[in-house]
């Protein structure tokens, strides 16, 4: 089981939990297990086409999965999966 850390504003869609233990051998499988358990999380993380929203980054421990194997990034028991937004702006 991996531990998924739930950002504060999304806890309302995850039974108010700040973290959830889910199964899965890859980042994609972990996210699928998470959204299967808490379906309301899905529209917050994924577009209607099933892609991660543009502002959503996923980290396995300290590594951004975009720079690893994306959805196929291996996740081992005891790993921590974090959901981290992209934020920028300007005038």
């Amino acid at each position: 089981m991996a531990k998924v850390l739930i950002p504060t504003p999304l806890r309302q869609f995850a039974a108010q939990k700040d973290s959830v233990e889910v199964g899965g051998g890859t980042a994609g499988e972990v996210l699928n297990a998470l959204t299967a358990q808490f379906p309301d999380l899905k529209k917050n993380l994924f577009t209607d086409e099933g892609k991660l929203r543009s502002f959503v980054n996923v980290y396995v421990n300290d590594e951004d999965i975009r720079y690893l194997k994306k959805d196929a990034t291996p996740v081992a028991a005891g790993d921590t999966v974090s959901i981290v937004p992209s934020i920028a702006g300007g005038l």
Partner: protein
Amino acid sequence: MITIDPEAFGLMVSHAESTFPNECCGVMLGKNTEDGKRVVAAMPVENVYKGAQEDRYEIRPEDLLKADRTARADGLELIGIFHSHPDCDAYFSKTDLENSCPWYSFVVLSIKKGKFDHAASFLPNADQTAAEKEELTWQKS
């Protein structure tokens, strides 16, 4: 509604003034309460935008990850993001909207001629097409 405690607001303002004429950025930690969001701590983070920072900012995702860990360790929550608009009003620009995230409050600090002028808070939607203004109260320390 979002309320920012004096010490946190003072830190946000001093960071925004010290980085003028560039944009600054940072995170706000606090609690969701029955009366709304209350910010008790602010953490400046590096503006990592590669280019002219007078009108752009970018936060390294790793810094948000660290902020979230700090918040959890301190029994707080990541409530929002702040950044400055040098010599410009505190509005939510098209660039702000297109690079936002709907999960947090976005506080914009207007810094004019190097000094704090006013602030406003915004709640962008998930499609990054609109941002609602959020009632903001603060006290200067």
